[in-house]
């Protein structure tokens, strides 16, 4: 059976995707063109890259990180990948395979770090040992290691695959609690400063439905299954809420986040600068830190001294948050 209805807005060929927020349908070629245009618009508007930037892409094996790596290479940027083996049971083994295959098939350089081998712990153990929720231990670990790898490797920009849904969901969470410090830092580009590399999010103008569709159309094989430790987390709840609003009022997510950047973020810039001034240097690893020893070094100390905890054990005791 053929698609009798929708036609591409640009060329009138049969459409493969409907995008209610653009009030339009697109064929494969013009959908890809739309995605490229949105990424170029983000890069230009927010001044994300210099022509000679050496880029490191944080890669998980999921749709967003592989899509952003693919898009940047297509647009002519030089970019290597960084994969962190988080030790989340079989999930991590499978996700590593997706990242490795993507890199190998395209002849790309993928740096790999294994938490258990390199730092003596994994995320389930860290969550149990530090009594953090798993996503908190994971986020802290990844942020530190991404920064460190970028600095050590001489990369001038660290790219993550955060998309419009990610940013809108974080914005919703921070707004509901009026987390002014977090709101002030929620920008698509954070410039390099005292031990931090420049951090860039080129996908902030694409929804995750669009990044997933990019991968399907481009034939990128990615890990579809969700992280077993993320199930039921607050971030997913915020995304559900925003998607319910989006279904009623297409374009709401983009308006919420992009108008925040345009109208609210400039008002918070002074607060962000104050926070930066307050940082000192970790006495153990030299990373920027709020205290004498940074949160990552404290986590490593506690988690690596703990007996390994299987992921199933942490999941049983999790039950959402």
């Amino acid at each position, binding site marked *: *059976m053929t698609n009798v209805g929708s036609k591409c807005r640009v060329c009138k060929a049969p459409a493969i995707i409907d995008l209610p927020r653009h009030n339009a349908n697109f064929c494969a070629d013009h959908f890809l063109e739309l995605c490229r245009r949105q990424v170029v618009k983000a890069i230009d508007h927010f001044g994300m890259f210099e022509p000679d930037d050496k880029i490191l892409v944080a890669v998980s094996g999921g749709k967003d990180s592989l899509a952003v790596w693919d898009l940047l290479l297509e647009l002519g940027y030089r970019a290597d990948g960084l994969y962190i083996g988080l030790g989340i049971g079989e999930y991590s083994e499978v996700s590593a395979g997706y990242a490795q295959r993507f890199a190998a098939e395209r002849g790309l350089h993928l740096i790999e770090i294994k938490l258990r081998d390199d730092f003596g712990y994994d995320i389930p153990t860290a969550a149990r040992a530090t009594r953090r929720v798993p996503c908190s231990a994971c986020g802290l670990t990844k942020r530190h290691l991404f920064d460190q790898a970028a600095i050590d490797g001489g990369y001038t920009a660290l790219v993550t695959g955060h998309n419009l849904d990610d940013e809108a969901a974080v914005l919703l969470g921070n707004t509901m609690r009026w987390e002014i410090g977090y709101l002030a830092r929620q920008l698509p580009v954070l410039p390099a400063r005292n031990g931090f590399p420049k951090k860039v999010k080129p996908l902030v103008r694409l929804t995750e439905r669009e990044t997933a569709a990019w991968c399907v159309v481009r034939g990128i094989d990615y890990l*579809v299954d969700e992280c077993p430790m993320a199930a039921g987390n607050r971030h997913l709840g915020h995304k559900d809420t925003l998607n319910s609003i989006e*279904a009623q009022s297409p374009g709401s997510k983009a308006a919420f986040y992009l108008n925040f950047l345009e109208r609210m973020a400039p008002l918070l810039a002074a607060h962000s600068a104050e926070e930066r001034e307050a940082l000192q240097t970790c006495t153990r690893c030299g990373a920027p830190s709020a205290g004498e020893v940074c949160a990552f070094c404290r986590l490593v100390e506690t988690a690596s001294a703990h007996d390994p905890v299987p992921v199933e054990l942490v999941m049983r005791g999790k039950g959402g948050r």
Partner: protein
Amino acid sequence: MRVLLRNPSREIEITGRRRVHALLNELGLNRESHLVIRNGTLVPGDGELSDDDVIEIRPVISGGC
């Protein structure tokens, strides 16, 4: 038609032709957070699905932050 669902992976059988958005509504799935794929190709919201189709309904929401 055979419908493959994810998270957790499972398969259901649906009888009768319908459009993609009608199927998603019937299953209580938000179209903003799912893609419908037939033979490796995306199918838009008003695409018609027939009884002998095998389709995948793929969630697109990631929980990492």
